[in-house]
């Protein structure tokens, strides 16, 4: 009978040093100290990783040491995620996002964006019509924390004051509006999963708020002034909400009508486009927040307000739909 050579003994002796070296390198990267690796370390990493993979294959075929196989599996998986999970540098990802991925995603959402904008408009018109006929609808539509003392029974002077006088808690109110609207946009997106039905309702309701709002200003002869007051940040913000809704609808449609693809695959590819669009929506909402926090309080002239709002809208439209695109694979 030969001398027993229980599993791994020779196998381990030959390779264990490499495994340990790989493990220390990975641990350093995982702790976020990738920059402390020298050039030799970086060249060594893929070699060591392949070594560990081949050790794993060999160990699975020839060794019965469960501990050894488990260790190699865990080591190889950790190394895999570091080697193949490498992202390009942040600045290049950001540049790529703005140059290609974002406009491309918005363009491919064209149909859904049309539906979302239509829902907003229909909501606006419906609420405008209802509140004009019966002002008590106003309180049913607008949440009291957004109404801020405005109402059908406020006098023209009071309403005018809400448009031109900076209030006491403006910064707080602006921050509140920003977070509220962002949450609203996120919800428009997330609710799309339920076949898009709640998204449509939410967009409609958003339009209703706008319509109810206008309906109390227009009869007092403040229609244009109110529109200018809204437009300075509203064009950006409402567009952002419409895009978020479009992203949600896109997912909802993919889940409801997956076509030839499996339902899950359809959801994943729709989710990808929609998520890129949503990242952009957050950017737009931040721009709207700045316009609202600074511009609306500082600038009192209707014309300037409307001009800024109009320029913003035109800028977004040009950027999304007119700007020529390089057709690299969008990746983020």
């Amino acid at each position, binding site marked *: *009978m030969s*001398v*027993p*050579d*229980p*599993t*791994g*003994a020779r196998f381990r002796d030959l390779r264990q040093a490499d495994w340990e070296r790989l493990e220390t390198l990975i641990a350093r990267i*995982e702790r*976020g100290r*990738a920059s402390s690796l020298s050039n030799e370390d970086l060249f060594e990493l893929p070699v060591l990783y*392949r070594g560990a*993979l081949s050790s*794993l*294959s060999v160990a699975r075929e*020839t*060794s*019965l*040491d*469960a*501990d*050894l196989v488990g*260790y190699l*599996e*865990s080591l*190889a998986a*950790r190394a*895999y*995620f*570091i080697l*193949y*999970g490498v*992202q390009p540098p942040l600045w290049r990802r950001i540049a790529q996002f703005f140059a290609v991925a974002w406009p491309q995603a918005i363009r491919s959402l064209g149909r859904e964006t049309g539906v979302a904008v239509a829902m907003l408009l229909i909501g606006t018109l419906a609420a405008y019509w209802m509140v004009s006929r019966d002002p008590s609808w106003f309180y049913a539509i607008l949440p009291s924390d957004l109404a801020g003392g405005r109402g059908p029974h406020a006098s023209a002077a009071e309403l005018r004051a809400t448009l031109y006088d900076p209030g*006491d*808690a*403006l*910064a*707080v109110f602006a*921050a*509140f509006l*920003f*977070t509220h609207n962002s*949450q609203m946009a*996120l*919800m428009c997106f*997330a609710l799309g*999963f339920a076949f898009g039905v709640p998204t449509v309702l939410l967009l409609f309701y958003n339009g209703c708020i706008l319509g109810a709002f206008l309906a109390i200003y227009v009869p007092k002869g403040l229609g244009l002034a109110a529109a200018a007051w809204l437009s300075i940040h509203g064009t950006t913000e409402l567009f952002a909400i419409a895009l978020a809704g479009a992203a949600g609808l896109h997912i909802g449609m993919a889940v409801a009508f997956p076509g030839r693809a499996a339902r*899950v695959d359809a*959801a*994943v590819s*729709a*989710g*990808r486009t*929609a*998520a*890129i669009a*949503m*990242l952009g929506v957050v950017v737009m909402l931040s721009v709207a927040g700045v316009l609202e926090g600074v511009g609306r309080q500082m600038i009192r002239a209707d014309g300037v307000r409307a001009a800024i709002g109009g320029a913003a809208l035109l800028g977004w439209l040009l950027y999304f739909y007119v700007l020529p695109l390089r057709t690299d694979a969008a*990746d*983020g």
Partner: protein
Amino acid sequence: MAEPRTRQFVTPEGVDLRLELAGVGERAAAFLLDLIILMLVLIAFTIAALFVLVGTGPAGGQAMAAIWLLGFFLLRNFYFTAFELGTRGATIGKRVLKMRVVARNGGRLSGHAVVARNAMRELEFFLPLSFFAYESSQGLADFATAGAGLLWSGVFVLFPFFNRDHMRVGDLIAGTWVARQPRRTLRAAVVERQAAPLYSFTDAQLGAYGEFELQKLEEVLRRGDELAMIVVARTIRTRIGWTGAQGDELPFLQAYYAALCTRLERNMLFGQRRRDKHAQG
């Protein structure tokens, strides 16, 4: 026989890493931990804001309130995303419980996937929560709204239980999985190479067991529980009809392990595997 929670994950080099998916319980625990961390940060942030407020008076108060609102917003929406975009692909809670987010197609975890899975979290968790908070603050939480809210959150909370990959709705949309990633250290082999075997076994005696029993024996030897070793040694001796020396369980088991392992591994090289003692060997 693959474990039901193990999934094929083939690297570009063609090796299957056999990732193990995280269970619902572990994921809930990680999420709870993250929530506690969020809560603590928020409380610390609030206390800091209050101190500044006391220092500056009402003028600074407005600014602080605005900053607090924005801070809360950022924390709620970007805590998960920021951590999962890092090299470890995991929030603090997931790190503690040894898990990471993985792209289902085996590619790298992209930024938009992380954004998508966390935007859905808004719907799955924060929406019902804020809904309840708002309703109860208004004193409106009647039976119907409470029921609708529970039904709503129930659908999402139960979702991971009804698909075999334990995916949240967010995972489904984003194309991600949450996999366990235990960190293991290589322990010494159970039995060192021996110059000369203390015991020798016949082929028939070694043929009594297969791979499954060998790995169970490995576990027993690693645990080093004397009582278990006595029981196991007695079982093996009875089964192989051992007539040699009694007593000294540890050396006996080590020798048997080494001999059995050598035999099974040699057979593996010839393409003969024996799963367990019931298999033909």
